[in-house]
């Protein structure tokens, strides 16, 4: 079996992707010593390399646009190459946080109220008026984030109208559309979902307690700056509700093989959906590897099973 792990790319999450790719490739090599596992960046030479020596399966671990918006997977489909993970159209739904929230809410999963606005709206209607409307419609505090992207890049918590311009500019630095979401206090958790023989199964939730209160880029990728609890310290009923929410998200968005939902459990126990990842981070400090370990599942073995599923689909 020849497996190509795609990692890197040109997104702001390139570094994270490279680390995820290396870790998954190493785990696969350990779990399947007889497989040939290669790591490959996405560049102008990729398609030639795929044509010259097509792998049996591709694992796209590209984070950010092109990797998670389905574009590279579209090309894989055109080439008839099996890959692990969600199909392109479902990627597009999942990668746009506002679209994903719409569909997830429609399926009955709670999600904080939000508005998604392009810069053009502020320019055309006048920023002060739009911000006043946001204040009235959503109130503060708000989480401001790019609608497309991950690793908390461009994300900020805004507590007042005065802080909003900075938050908007920070989000627009990473994309043309910003989402403003009502801030929910509670327990921050993530739940991985893996498709098993008889359907998608939720992994145990990981609870995230960053030292500084905000699970930002530094808190995500600096070991020691965030306290994790696996399984999360939740009542059994709430933990069950979180698992069901993650599986619902996986199903309603049409995701495939694996995903990771980021959720927040409000103080009243309501499980709120925030966003979902179709190429979850797999670095040393990422969440899905912790969930797999807590479940007694070897990461390499699990990835190998997903590869075998993908190749069997053809």
């Amino acid at each position, binding site marked *: 079996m020849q497996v190509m792990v795609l990692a890197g790319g*040109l*997104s*702001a*999450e*390139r*570094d*994270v992707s*490279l680390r995820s790719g290396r870790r998954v490739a190493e785990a696969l090599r350990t779990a399947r010593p007889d497989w040939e596992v290669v790591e490959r960046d996405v*560049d102008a030479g990729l398609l030639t390399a795929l044509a010259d020596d097509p792998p049996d399966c591709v694992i796209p671990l590209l984070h950010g646009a092109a990797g998670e918006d389905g574009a590279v997977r579209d090309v894989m489909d055109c080439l008839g190459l099996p890959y692990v993970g969600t199909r392109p159209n479902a990627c597009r739904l999942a990668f746009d946080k506002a679209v994903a929230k719409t569909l997830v809410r429609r399926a009955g999963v709670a999600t904080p109220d939000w508005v998604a606005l392009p*810069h053009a709206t*502020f*320019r055309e209607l006048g*920023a002060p008026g739009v911000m006043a409307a946001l204040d009235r419609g959503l109130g503060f505090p708000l989480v401001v984030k790019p609608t497309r992207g991950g*690793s908390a*890049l*461009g994300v*900020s918590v805004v507590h007042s109208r005065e802080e909003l*311009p*900075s*938050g*908007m*500019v*920070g989000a*627009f*630095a*990473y994309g043309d559309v910003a989402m403003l979401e009502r801030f929910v206090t509670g327990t921050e958790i993530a739940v991985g979902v893996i498709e098993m023989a008889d359907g998608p199964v939720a992994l145990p939730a990981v*609870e995230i*307690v960053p030292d500084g209160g905000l699970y*930002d*880029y*530094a808190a*995500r*990728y*600096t*070991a*020691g*700056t*965030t*306290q*994790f*609890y*696996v399984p999360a310290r939740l009542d059994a009923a709430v933990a069950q509700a979180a698992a069901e929410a993650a599986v619902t998200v996986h199903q309603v968005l049409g995701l495939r093989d694996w995903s990771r939902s980021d959720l927040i459990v409000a103080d009243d126990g309501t499980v709120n959906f925030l966003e979902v990842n179709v190429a979850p981070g797999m670095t*040393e*400090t990422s969440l899905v590897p*912790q969930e797999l370990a807590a479940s007694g599942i070897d990461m390499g073995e699990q990835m190998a099973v997903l590869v075998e599923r993908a190749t069997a689909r053809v």
Partner: protein
Amino acid sequence: MAERTDSGTRLDPWVDAYATRARGMTASEIRALFSVASRPEVVSLAGGMPFVQALPLEALAETAARLVRERGAQVLQYGSGQGDVTLRGQILDVMSEVGITAHPDDVVVTTGSQMALDLVTRIFCDPGDVVFVEAPSYVGALGVFRAYECDIVHVPMDEEGLVPEALAEAIAQARAAGKKPKMIYTIPSFQNPAGVTQGPERRHRVLEVAKREGLLLLEDDPYGLLGFDGPPPRAIRADDDEQVIYLGSFSKTIASGLRVGWAVAPHGVREKLVLAAESAVLCPSNYAQLTVSEYLATQPWREQVKVFREVYRERRDALLESLEQLMPAGTRWTHPAGGFYSWVTLPEGLDSKAMLPRAIAALVAYVPGTGFYVDGQGHESLRLSYCYPEPDRIREGVRRLAGVIEGELDLAATFGTGRVLRDAEGPEGPAPNIL
């Protein structure tokens, strides 16, 4: 394997064991963005990598091979903590270009001048001692001073570099506040990052302040031989061998990968530097030192420096011309007469750090000005380097950057400000091997 306890895990069993000074060593959004800069699609005006492709690589390969073949037992062995004596003599010849006369015993060879910076700080600075640096200053020096827990004070510059009156005032203020001034750090020639150069009179006045105040003057001169107009500026050390410690480097005149630099210091200081060097690395690499020594002895190194000057002059011209043609109104920049860098000041209200993700998305990279300060200044500025990309790529990079700035002006017009202060403030630049 990470520790797992009832209180959860932090994925790092040593989290409570790190020294206080390691507290700021965290993953950073900015460093993540720099990792994209190494892709060929990106025009990187960020890194400070010298254009080593201009070297006579065949001759260097032959030198390196001959050294192992003929003197292997020496070059692959430990050496003196002070550095190879022949090379120290040759360094005197190099320094004669900037007017310095000294004795080989005054020279300590180091693993790049970065190590000399570390050693000088190590032997002089206790936590809390005040180091005066230019505003802005070299990110690598700021990192060293922070590592030794110095109190770093930025002193304003003008178009001729460090302002002596401002320096004297900063020293007075520090003393009045009960602090302990220890050292003045300056890059007088083609400063990194600002690209400005102190004239002879300015150098004299800076030295006078150091002498009057009894402070060590640490003169960092990696770019001194890379001037485009006339002979290299005379080093401050050329006029004072007691107050000044001079740091030199072959990174820009030969090859950064060899990691050979040096310090020239008064006798007492030098003895301590050697002892500190021995405790840090035992000795600098014999192989690298003797490669440099052989190169200096057998190659026309002065001619090669001229080649570098011409390469960088052409690139500087490409940068300045395209900035002139393309930058939006309200943008200003320095006109370096040598070295690697120009310092750009953005139109009012723009923030170079907040703008970086857009620049990376537009496939152009620079270093935000905040990286060259420890006190939160620099949001309105950025550093452009012209040392590595070919002139056409520099023009393309400036074209892309101009578009990014136009976009930021549009955002600023909508929201009034571009300032986002989410990251920890502090010196932050690309890794040394980032383009």
